């Protein structure tokens, strides 16, 4: 990704929020939506446009779990680790997923195929355990769900 294309992406996001108060989060959402992450190279452009320091922008990006400063894998599986999912065997499921995908939470496989992330509540607590798999909410997730994903994604067993 060239600096020019990153700058262009930032400027589109900034223009969309022109005149709106407190636009930083919305701009970061736009950039991440377009590029899949917020590249560190985008920070000075955003800071310039909003008359903020780079530290302030970086501080906001790093505060929120949702924003990434590097690309995710081709597939992202977010497993809910909150109480309602724990009550439905969430611990064992998390351990299984880590083992099957050979990843810890917050990591991306070296082959770039999968990112495993923890999430704290997807609002699907009566159908636990829940996961967000490539943006799709899934309920009553079990080991088979994870295995099928791993297989479909070509993750060696």
């Amino acid at each position, binding site marked *: 990704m060239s600096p020019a294309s990153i700058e262009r992406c930032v400027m589109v996001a900034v223009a969309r929020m022109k005149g*709106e*108060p*407190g*636009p*930083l*989060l*919305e701009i*970061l*959402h736009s950039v991440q939506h377009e590029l899949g992450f917020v590249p560190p190279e985008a920070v000075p452009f955003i800071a310039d446009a*909003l008359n903020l320091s780079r530290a*302030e922008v970086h*501080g*906001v990006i790093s*505060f*929120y*779990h*949702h*924003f990434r400063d590097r690309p995710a894998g081709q597939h992202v599986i977010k497993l*809910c680790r*909150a*109480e*309602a*999912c*724990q*009550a*439905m065997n969430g*611990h064992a499921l998390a351990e299984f997923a880590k083992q099957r995908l050979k990843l810890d939470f917050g990591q991306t496989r070296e082959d770039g195929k999968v990112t495993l992330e923890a*999430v*704290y*509540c*997807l*609002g*699907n*607590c*009566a*159908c*636990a355990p*829940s996961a*967000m798999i490539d*943006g799709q*909410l*899934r*309920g*009553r997730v079990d080991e088979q769900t994870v295995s099928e994903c791993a297989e479909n994604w070509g993750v060696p067993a």
Partner: protein
Amino acid sequence: MTTVYVPGDASAVSLGADAVAVELTRECRQRGWPIRIVRNGSRGLFWLEPLVEVSVAGKRVAYGPVRAVDVAGLLDAGMLDGADHALRQGNIESHAWLGQQQRLTTARLGVVDPADIDDYIKHAGYTGLVAALGMPAGEIVRTVTESGLRGRGGAAFPTGIKWQTAHDQVAAQKYIACNADEGDSGTFSDRMLMEGDPFSLIEGMTIAGLAVGATQGYIYLRVEYPHAARALARALHVARERGYLGNDIRDSGRNFDISVRMGAGAYICGEETSMLESLEGRRGEVRVRPPLPAIKGLFGQPTVVNNVVTLATVPVILARGAAHFRDFGMGKSRGTIPFQLAGNVKHGGLIECAFGLTVKELVHGYGGGTATGRPVRAVQIGGPLGAYLPESAFDTPLDYEALAEKGGLLGHGGVVVFDDTVDMARMARYALEFCAIESCGKCTPCRVGSTRGVELVDRILASANGSRDRDVALLDELCDTMANGSLCGLGGLTPFPVRSALRHFREDFY
């Protein structure tokens, strides 16, 4: 043309509702049977989702849980005529689980088409706004005060008093900020309302704007709720087009509009001052109060901060009067509240009832015990900051004061059930770990206390008997510091689950 309802609610979708809708369309097209599919919200009986309803001679006949592979068989059996089938549930409104509820705020959930404003109006929608448009602002506030409505987000602060404070401020710009950062595990009533009846929230916010003199509203929506974001965007567009939002609402000369702002995965932003910081585009760090947001809130202006359920309850209060709402409930907890029953439970879902229902009635009556069939060991009420209660406390009525007496809190009305395989020391450790992950870092008791707490629980579990008692006492002291020294509820309330686990399930620590 037969109308078939297939919920578009995120939970129903998570169980395959989209695939059911696709299969229904495909099969019926192939058979030449004309149908109209409405993606309604969920009625909240999640063990029956996806719950498909067919409109037969003006009555609705339900089938569930329906999987895509069941569709052809259901159509063969005559589902479109309401015929018998193993999955047939009959008229779902006469199902005891739903029939016993007192649905005021959630009355339209699963009933209406959330994208259709005319359907909303047909089901008594916007009667509250029409009433409010005919009242002086002070009288709207008085009606809400007299209804006894308290904030449903967790703090249970009287809504009318908050509105009165904002109403009394003189400012060029005031705001209504809707807290839709429903992050507590075990809760989903905000999500269901936004997806299944978004106009009720829009109407409630508009009434709030009229009451306090605000012309701009923000919905701070958590990023984990993409379905709700789509439903809101659709409904806001329609409301604007039809003159229910924007300038000169319904030819009243009054203005009010709403923007949705997305959160970014920070639990702390459900705390109101942290949410305001985030709305302003900053790190979601808690503000010191005073000043109260109602006096100096968003962008330094008077701001009413209420959660989704609170605001969505306002229309029915204005439509039917304060007394109608106040007559439900007990003590100082007036009206109804949508409880959310979740976790390891057979019949989980949304249960709107008057305050005063006991934990037992909820967990065993509605819930039917655990999903695994094992004995219930504990429930956590009120999300990750709520206390764990053992079966011996299940006669406690669910109301704000009664739970406070038991060392707990009702919070956002979520109840998570655990069976007897739960390790309560692990749950206590998790409460502290969660606090450490989600702490905004502004105050020391929360930022450092949570991490020290995790270490202490680990030490208690690993240590020999002698030092264990000392560490348990130290953990209790740490809880004291966090409870009394934290700036907001995250650090301040994390001791609830920790201490309740220690008190009621001490054997798990030894």
